[in-house]
């Protein structure tokens, strides 16, 4: 993957494999975003829709409002995600892709990528010590696969943040 600044945004050059991985991530997130919090796996629900901190501050009577609001914030991203998938699908299957991300979509992209990291961490029960484990020492399995993807997405996030911060500092 290569990232370069372009006018009013940045360009991602994706290998065939990277593009396939990102497409799958975006598709699976779209499906999850459609679900109401109560329909999600408990681990994911707690990660994305934890409003306990709000409820203890006197918001008990607004529980449904805030859960619905947080879910609608996510479901509103689906149109954009579909457009991103459409961009990648314009390239022949398995081939590299060029993805130009306009400035006004950058924050949504960061949120979506971060949601995927949070999702994986919740799903695979990733603890703090796991995040610092030497990768080669981890046994094969879902936890190792999730950590690999979490770190990959982290690298993508870092590149994006670095690229967009250059103009701001």
């Amino acid at each position, binding site marked *: 993957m290569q990232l370069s600044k372009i006018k009013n945004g940045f360009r991602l050059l994706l290998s065939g494999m990277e593009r396939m991985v990102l497409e799958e991530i975006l598709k699976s997130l779209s499906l999850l975003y459609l679900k109401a919090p109560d329909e999600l796996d408990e681990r994911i629900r707690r990660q994305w829709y934890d409003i306990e901190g709000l409820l203890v501050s006197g918001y008990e009577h607004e529980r*449904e*409002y805030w859960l*619905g609001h947080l879910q609608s914030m996510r479901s509103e991203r689906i149109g954009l995600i579909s457009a991103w998938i459409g961009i990648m699908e314009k390239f022949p299957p398995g081939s590299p892709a060029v993805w130009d991300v306009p400035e006004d979509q950058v924050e949504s992209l960061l949120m979506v990528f971060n949601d995927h990291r949070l999702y994986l961490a919740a799903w695979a029960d990733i603890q703090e010590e796991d995040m610092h484990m030497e990768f080669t020492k981890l046994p094969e399995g879902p936890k190792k696969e999730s950590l690999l993807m979490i770190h990959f997405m*982290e690298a993508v996030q870092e590149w994006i*943040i670095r690229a967009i911060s250059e103009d701001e500092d």
Partner: protein
Amino acid sequence: MKTSAQGFYTQAATAVPDVKERKKESTQKQPARGWIVVVWNDHINTMSFVVHVFRKVLGFNTSKARIHMMEVHVQGKSCVAKENREKAELYWEQLKGYGLRVTLESTD
């Protein structure tokens, strides 16, 4: 904080409650008071991501964003804003939208 499907397009989104109505009703019941927005440590969100979010959502400059990020990292939490209820809620939902752990606390 960390240091370092096909066919879905056509599915209908799950219905959400009539949020505007609920909000209007509940806001009218609450007396005016101050609220603080607290961001809590977690082991998935990265330092640079948190700094970025603080800058975008709260309008902090990089230096202030880093100070609050380090407070979250070292002390476990940071009070990032003290506002009226409406503004505090806005910050809360925006920070939640990025995936940060955030709570609201009344100053009363």
